[in-house]
């Protein structure tokens, strides 16, 4: 089984500042890794994903994440945030074979302040 830990439930940050949202995972098998964003009362939108290859992946809205196998981490970063980035961010993993059901972290609320 897989598990995902998002250590920060809330991250306040000022506009135009950099931000990092942390994600650690546990799995006995190879996994795919994802970051999703959820705006209030909406479904989840895929930000980026890691399947294989380069450990630095770039996504939409200027976000990027780095896969670190030795530390079992997949932290999300953005060099300069905007007010519109205020949302809930979820890290998720799934096995690279089989039914591909996602295991989610508990989410991190990013609050961008002016």
């Amino acid at each position, binding site marked *: 089984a897989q598990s995902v830990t998002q250590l920060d439930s809330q991250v306040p940050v000022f506009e135009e500042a950099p931000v990092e949202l942390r994600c650690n995972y546990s799995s006995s098998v190879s996994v*795919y890794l*994802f970051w*999703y964003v959820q705006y209030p*009362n*909406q*479904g*989840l*939108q*895929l930000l980026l*994903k890691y*399947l294989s290859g380069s450990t630095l992946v770039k996504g939409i809205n200027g976000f990027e994440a780095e896969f670190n196998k030795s530390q079992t981490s997949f932290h999300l970063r953005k060099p300069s945030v905007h007010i519109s980035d205020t949302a809930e961010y*979820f890290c998720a993993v*799934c096995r*690279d074979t089989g*039914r*591909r*059901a*996602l*295991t*989610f*972290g*508990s*989410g991190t609320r990013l609050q961008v302040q002016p």
Partner: protein
Amino acid sequence: SQTIHQWPATLVQPVGSPLSLECTVEGTSNPNLYWYRQAAGRGLQLLFYSVGIGQISSEVPQNLSASRPQDRQFILSSKKLLLSDSGFYLCAWTGRGDTQYFGPGTRLTVL
């Protein structure tokens, strides 16, 4: 392009009443379909997934059930709702690829 629909968007139901939430996918065939629930202030929990018509796997024991009567239709049901069934219900699909795409969700409040 593929789209996923969920309805209703919002639902308020009394305890003990039945439930039926519907999810449909357009623009793809034979998708894998998933139901997730997001309780207030918590992450998402996988409830059911389906790899084909009539094929349902349940992830957690509960008073909910799921059915897939057609290739691109996935229904979440309950005979008698509990207060603890309140939450945000999300449907998702995958095709041959590795990414799950989510619907807009249904906000269920059980009073």
